[in-house]
């Protein structure tokens, strides 16, 4: 419940309907898509303008109350779980696409716009906004920016950070910060735009974004390759890139995932295979054809057991549906799905997958691995049951081992899901003490009171690094 004076001030700004502290509202903003975390906020607010966001933050500063920005709560790092209580600030009422500028190839949006809504709007104009997290139907652009979301097209087109040109954001004290703009070239001082991308709601609340658009590719074509040997699949990935081809999608599924997907979807996947690569190229038809033929050759040369090229775009969509139904298939198997997000250099994919399998066996756990092979971003997914305390403890240990392995292979603790609370204990392993201190300094500069999304990114529970695997 909110302190009554504070609530009165909030209501004066936002109106009665947009300030809530009843039990239902508090319960329903106590979680996000991250399993195992939940905590009650004191209240929930729904601003509709930058000025309202400013007022809320001024009031929150005055009462020294945490503010947790929230889009759709689809993040997987407990980033919107209000661990210290406070106000959850839901941004979904700010959901207008303000401008699509065909001359400068930019879109200016409010943070609550759904990613897919922007896709549809710009594609109508023959333009393209590539970042496509699998959650794009529900995730908001504000959430995407705050998490630096990736997606299936990351290899060729990059991730959210490559498409944000400018931001309007409100600082903890209510001041408005504007960074960047429509310029593609802009090197005045520190790159504050980039700094806010991936800041997980801890530095400022984003109220507007100017995004870069590119022309919509003319055509696309898909190919699928099966491998009875993990290394052959990994070699194929490296060889494709080495040949100078950057496919728009290069997805990977391991043996366990193939089996599970096939049992669920019955789409004729070969269950005896060790790996499947799903590859798509887009662009002018002639080049696409050329690339796909070349990829076919490379896969064959590297020992693919079976290769098929989609005849049409629709055929291609069907092939890729296998990857898309992975989540549904996995989700139906066990009650709790812990979808992790480790990234290694693409040359080390086979090593990482093998390590994951070894860890799974060691801790007696079910782990299915799939992901974006092109950029080495793997999603080892634990199939477990939150009610089984013993198993969850093994999951935690296995996860620590996995992080350790990824770092040793030159990888990172998170490729696209953010640090939040879930990865916070491991951040120091990756960036070191100096890294943490610099980050904390930045945090203080933006938010001296520490009211913006406290408890995230930085952990007071630093884990001793195991070293060695």
């Amino acid at each position, binding site marked *: 419940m909110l302190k009554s004076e504070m609530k009165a001030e909030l209501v004066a700004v936002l109106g009665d309907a947009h300030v809530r502290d009843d*039990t*239902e*509202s508090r*319960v329903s903003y106590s979680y996000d898509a991250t399993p*195992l975390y939940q905590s009650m906020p004191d209240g929930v607010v729904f601003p509709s303008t930058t000025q309202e966001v400013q007022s809320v933050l001024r009031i929150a500063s005055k009462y020294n109350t945490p503010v947790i920005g929230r889009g759709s709560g689809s993040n997987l790092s407990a980033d919107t779980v209000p661990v210290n*209580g406070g106000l959850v600030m839901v941004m979904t009422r700010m959901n207008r696409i303000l401008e699509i500028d065909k001359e400068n190839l930019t879109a200016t949006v409010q943070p609550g716009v759904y990613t897919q809504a922007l896709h549809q709007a710009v594609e109508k104009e023959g333009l393209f906004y590539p970042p496509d997290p699998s959650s794009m139907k529900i995730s908001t652009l504000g959430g995407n920016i705050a998490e630096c979301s990736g997606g299936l097209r990351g290899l060729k087109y990059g991730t959210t950070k490559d498409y944000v040109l400018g931001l309007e954001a409100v600082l903890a004290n209510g001041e408005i910060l504007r960074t960047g703009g429509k310029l593609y070239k802009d090197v005045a001082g520190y790159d504050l735009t980039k700094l806010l991308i991936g800041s997980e709601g801890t530095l400022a609340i984003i109220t507007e974004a100017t995004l870069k658009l590119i022309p919509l590719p003319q055509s696309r074509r898909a190919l699928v390759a099966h491998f009875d040997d993990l290394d052959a699949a990994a070699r194929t990935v490296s060889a494709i890139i080495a040949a100078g081809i950057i496919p728009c999608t290069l997805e990977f599924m391991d043996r366990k995932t193939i089996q599970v997907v096939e049992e669920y979807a019955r789409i004729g996947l070969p269950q005896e295979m060790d790996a499947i690569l799903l590859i798509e190229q887009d662009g002018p038809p002639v080049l696409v054809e050329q690339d796909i033929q070349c990829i076919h050759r490379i896969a064959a040369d590297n020992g693919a057991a079976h290769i098929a090229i989609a005849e049409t775009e629709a055929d291609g969509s069907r092939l890729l549906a296998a990857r898309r139904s992975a989540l549904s298939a996995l*989700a139906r198997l066990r*009650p709790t799905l812990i979808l992790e997000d480790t990234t290694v250099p693409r040359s080390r994919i086979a090593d990482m997958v093998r390590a994951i399998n070894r860890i799974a066996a060691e801790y007696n756990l079910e782990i299915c691995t799939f992901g974006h092979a092109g950029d080495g971003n793997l999603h080892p997914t634990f199939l477990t049951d939150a009610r089984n305390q013993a198993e969850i403890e093994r999951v935690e240990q296995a996860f620590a081992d996995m992080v350790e392995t990824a770092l040793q292979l030159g990888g990172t603790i998170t490729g696209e899901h953010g640090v939040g609370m879930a990865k916070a204990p491991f951040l120091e392993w990756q960036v070191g003490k100096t890294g943490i201190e610099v980050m904390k300094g930045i945090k203080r500069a933006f938010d001296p009171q520490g009211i913006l999304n406290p408890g995230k990114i930085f952990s007071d529970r630093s884990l001793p690094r195991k070293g060695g695997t």
Partner: protein
Amino acid sequence: MTQTAPTKAKMVNHNAAASPWNELGRKLALTLDTEELTNCMRCGFCLPACPTYRETGLEAASPRGRIALMKAAHDGWMMPDPAFQQQMDFCLGCRACESACPADVRFGRLLEQSRAAIAEHAPQSQREKGLRKLFLRGLFPHRYRLRLMGATLALYRKTGLHWFVHKSGLARILPLHLRQLDRILPAASSQGVVERIGTVIPAQGKKRGRVGLFRGCIMDVVFADTNENTARLLAAAGYEVVIPPEQTCCGALHAHSGEEGEALELARHNIQTFRQADVDWIASNAGGCGAQLMETSYLLKDDAKWQADAHWFSTRIRDISQLLLAGNPLPLQSLPKRITYQHSCHLQNGMKVAGAPESLIRSIPDATYVDLFEGDRCCGSAGIYNLTHPETSMNILDEKMNHVKETAADILVTTNPGCLLQMKLGIERAGLHDRMEALHLVDLLMQSMKKGENAHERTEKAQ
């Protein structure tokens, strides 16, 4: 990856003084399906599918939010209260969330379990209790009384009762949409399908099997023609049709509004009836009934004695569109109209039937099938939702009618009596009644087939 206990963990002490809400909490802890609650991984994929989330933008009015509320009440860190009850009432029960859910969470079951607990324990107004009893126990399961009501309704139309309602001021206290509803209600019939065509109709052409027709309760009073057409179409498609007269209401309205015990009774009765009729399939022409009938086996999951029969029953339920598509081709004749299709939620999300109705429409010679934008979204009818939540229901309907208008269709087809009434109401509200009509799929097919019969008769006469 540590579990964070809710900051206000264990807020509720269920041993405290007995209040109805306390009792409700205890009941929810016992009856909510723990597996289903745990299976929700809170991904939020169901949010965009949910009409009440779209209306309000509030997480609590989303499937994920409702499940979180149920779980919080179930786990005892939230005491259910009037707001909890309102949130469960506010749900349309359209189950669009189920179709969107990657984890296959059966939201409909959780909703029914919650509503059952609420019906039993939450304090209700006398009026609400009275109405519930009157309709759910006193009327729907009783054919004779329903038929009597049908006759009264017919009388009401013919005589000056209509005038009385208006004169007496009753009309003034009825909300606008109810008065509109009054205008579009079809003339109820005092003759149901059995009275019209008997209990066995032989198959025509190559025999495809023996089908039991589930005639429904309201369906057989308000849409008796549709039931008759259903039987005739099935026969034309090669099925021998039996209509056991002892069958009763499907119990959907009971289950959806928390009258679980009554729903169980009705289920057992229907199982017995159709088991005895020894049919290959049981045909439903109302998505709402069909989906409920398919749930029979889950309903009786704790009843060892009935398990096997319930399974037999559930797995035999087919929608009329599925059977027609699988049967002998219907002798359909030219119907040069623009036709669009509004899905029935329970057919689509409950029975998981999609595509069959559209295929049948497309098979009508010279008809043009036009896609309805968001035709798979709930129309806001949702059982008695348009009576209990008129504002939301009408908002949803009016938005739907904007899309319907864009199709410029002559005929708007649907597959469930509630949806059909709502569509008729929508056409009325949007002022489209002189351009467009709403029809049940079965009646549409019959129109196209009758044209054939008439043409056939004409040629016979000419010869």
